[in-house]
């Protein structure tokens, strides 16, 4: 069972992770994009979590997640804003009114969130985007839960799949986002969006351990 405190811990861990990896993500983005992904993610999570501190004590998990989404939309700055924003706002719709999340809830949350990203970004697996991480992670999570694993095991397998997903973006040619202007020259570089998605999922795992 994932409680409200886990979700809050997840967001504050994510904030720390993006602060630590600000330069790393920006470097990755410098190779194939506009060199702002780390700056954007750090700004977005710092400002969003600052505001989240003032949320009413009796808010449920759905409300917290949804608010984070809206805050990311207006504070990240790049395409990652609407994309991660959609992940959280759409995911939140699947867990409306919940005060804690059971297996089904966490699965619905992740699935609906990933669907939100798919719809917003209109990308496919293999396009060298965050979906190369999110879709395999969602699949691994669903699979594990169906195999009767507990939440911790399921999220662990999702993070494993996410890590592979990040690696898989290196040999890809970008089909979406600014990197696609580079065509073949995008090959050989790890996708920054995929990397931040992996970091975000890893933070979730840390938060529920």
């Amino acid at each position, binding site marked *: 069972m994932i409680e409200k405190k886990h979700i809050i811990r997840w967001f504050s861990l994510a904030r720390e992770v993006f602060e630590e990896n600000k330069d790393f993500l920006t470097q990755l983005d410098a190779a194939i994009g*506009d060199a*702002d992904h780390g*700056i*954007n993610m750090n*700004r977005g999570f710092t400002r969003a979590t600052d505001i989240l501190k003032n949320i009413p004590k009796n808010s449920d998990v759905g409300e917290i997640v949804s608010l984070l989404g809206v805050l990311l*939309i*207006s*504070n*990240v*700055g*790049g*395409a*990652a*804003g*609407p*994309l991660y*924003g*959609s992940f959280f706002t*759409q995911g939140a*719709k*699947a867990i409306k009114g919940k005060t804690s999340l059971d297996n089904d809830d966490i699965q*619905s949350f992740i*699935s*609906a969130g*990933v*669907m939100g990203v*798919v719809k*917003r*970004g209109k990308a*496919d*697996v*293999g396009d060298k985007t965050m979906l190369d991480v999110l*879709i395999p992670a*969602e*699949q691994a999570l*669903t*699979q594990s839960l*169906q195999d009767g694993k507990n939440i911790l095991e399921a999220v662990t397998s999702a993070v494993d799949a996410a890590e592979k997903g990040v690696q898989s973006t290196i040999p890809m040619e970008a089909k979406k*986002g*600014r990197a696609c202007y580079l065509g073949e020259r995008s090959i050989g570089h790890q996708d920054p969006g995929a990397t931040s998605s992996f970091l975000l999922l890893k933070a979730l795992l840390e938060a529920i351990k």
Partner: protein
Amino acid sequence: MISIVVVSHSAKLAESVCELAQQVAQGSVKMAFAGGVDDDECPFGTDAIKILKAIESVYTDEGVLVMADIGSSIMSAETALEFIGDDKRDNIRLCEAPLIEGTIVAAALVAAGASFDQIEQEACSACDVKIQHFGRKKSSQEIKVAVSSSSTGSWEKIITVSNPMGLHARPAAQCVMAASRFNSSLLMYNLDNEDEAANVLSINQIARLGVRQGHRVRLVAHGDDAKDAVTFLENLFRSNFGEPLKGDDFPTSIVPKAEGKDILTGIPISPGIIEGEAYVFKKQHPNVQEYHIDNSVVEWNRLELALEQAKHKIHRLCRDARYNLNTYDLAIFDVHLLCLKDPELLGFARKFIFDEKINAEAAWQRSIDQHLEAYNLIPDVYKQTCAADVVDVKVAVLQMLLGEQNVTLSVEEPCILLAKDLDPSDVIQLNPEKIKGLCLSEGNVTSHAVILARALGIPTIINSGSKLLEVQDNSFIVMDGATGQIWINPQKKVLARLRKKSCTNKASRKRGSYDPNKPFQTKDASVVRVVANICDMASAHKALKYGVDGVGLLRSEFLFWNYTSDPSEEEQYKVYRDIFNVMSGMSCVVRTLDIGGDKFLPYYNLTEENNAFMGQRGIRFSLAFPSIFKTQLRALLRAGVEHSLKIMFPMVSSLEELRMAKQIIAEVQEELSYEGKSFNNAVEIGVMIEVPAATIIADKMAQEADFFSIGSNDLVQYLTATDRSNTEVASLGHPFHLAHLRAIKHVTEVAHQAGITVSICGELASDPIILPLLLGLGIDEFSVDPVQIPIVREALSYFTKRQALSWTKKALSMDSGDEIKKFLNDKYTKVVKAHLKSDLN
């Protein structure tokens, strides 16, 4: 008055664009901007909330046009719209126009009081002025003219279906994809089969009409582009959906079942004598349980995600198979992709989830099963084939929903696969290296799974009866894909006989293993250049496998067929570049777009011609539509940099045409050089000799071309004035016709005098009987389909160059084609017999 919102990554840019536009509109337009983020260190970015506020600040019910620059501007603007109330959202449009040009045009038109539609449209073509100024590419206006003039209201047309297979799945898929390009609603009726009307957006509804060859179809469109929509579809029908007119030759007779104890008999599909261990594959269909759900939205999201994942899986499978299967075979999966978004299938599934509150798995299953019932009512083999595709899609989505997406048919050791039946998505995953043979107890010759198995070249037998499934795993079996027989644990005597037969078969394809690295040569080691006719990546790989000296004919039409409008320069560039890279180091002859005659492109509404074969074909079309021609040449010249590129023009009948085409190439090279782009500036230019006029003035042409290539199919047809599709007269258009042979001789003589080479790229080039004659007539290079390469290699090895020359001399002295054919046939049979004898000794 309509207002405008400008969105950019840069606040300064957004503001300046507004100022610039206001200057044009003399400050009369209500404008707002949203740009950048509030961060001094890194001020570039976009913020959906800022955009929302900007829209709200100038909102009016008359409309708001949102202009955005790139990437996240667009995505953030879309996100902003989600926060706006439904009643207002309809009045706000996101515009695809280029930011600066578009905004200026839009502001000017708003000030002038134009309508919302007009403003949007004009803004989108704001770059046309610039494009025209530089004289490059066609502008969007011009494209519209090329497609056809637009019309309003409704339009209809009755068409007789002429392709052999009728509206089976692939053509149906093309109809759906075509219909989705238009605003008008399109209905299709089958006048010879009193069914209800089908919505052309639903592949399942079209399939249920049961349209077959000879049926009359009525197309009815309603909407602002009704006429264009009907005309586009009509052209698709007229082009026979790009299908080979002969149709696939399916075995029609079923071998009587002589089911002995250890021998099973089925329908032979794909030849080959194979021995190996049996692997019995029992396909498990997912077990679906129906249950009540509370949250329909979540359930619907689950289904949508599963559909999305199924789509990815199909894309992945097609990507993995693209070297083994050609685009036409892979188009089978377009049908699957369309099923995943079929409005009827989704509509019912949605209804079950929201109205009856059942889980996604059960809803999807029920929706599909409901369709299948409708199919099964009609005893038509083609519809059953469609049903198999629908089942395949059903299972794929259920596997995603149930988390069984990793179930794949994979084997470690080489084996012969036995199964009841397979779905297309199973077959496409088969690795021909591991699956040596395929035997099905059921199956259908027209099913897509079987068509794919054959295309993959896997020896296949179907319909061999239920006993097949009683075979134990790892049993030793032998199959003969040519006769349809399967032996289980055969006796030594039988095995020896089969092995011998298998060896003789191979001997006819040159004893021992095939060596693709050996040069092509005649018996007396005179080297001959053999190159390949290819049309895509799959055929390029096949050609390499058999070993070729280059590409003699790259048919570029295929590329245009895969799109619903002109492929752009970049799209073409990538495809050409990939093919050139694969053929690296070898020369590649590319024929420029050759449409007209029996080849149409559905997006060009060419006037119907009384005699299309004598109409606007080949280079005539390219010269009439210079923008299309230039785009292709630009892509080719750019992709051909550092490759040995040769460009060839089809259907040339006069020197003027050759000169005009060459002039355009020179212009394109100049443009590319001016733009600083790298391109091939040493390209060789050739003429395809297929019109009698070209043979007669070949001496003049040879002075201005770098090479010739004879298109024998059309040349024979035009020389003898016989239509090859008219069975009453087709035999008059004989490739052995003396006129044809003399024409070839003349062309090679004048070409060689001018110091240029002549190749031949018609079907003729791979006919072993005529091969010595063509060699004797002076052909320098033979361009053949990849599968024919081993045959040509073998045929060459039977005779000497001297024999070829002496036979040719004799043949040219004869009076009739029949006489020549008989003479060559006798000579050839003799040398083959002599060869086999010496080989056995």
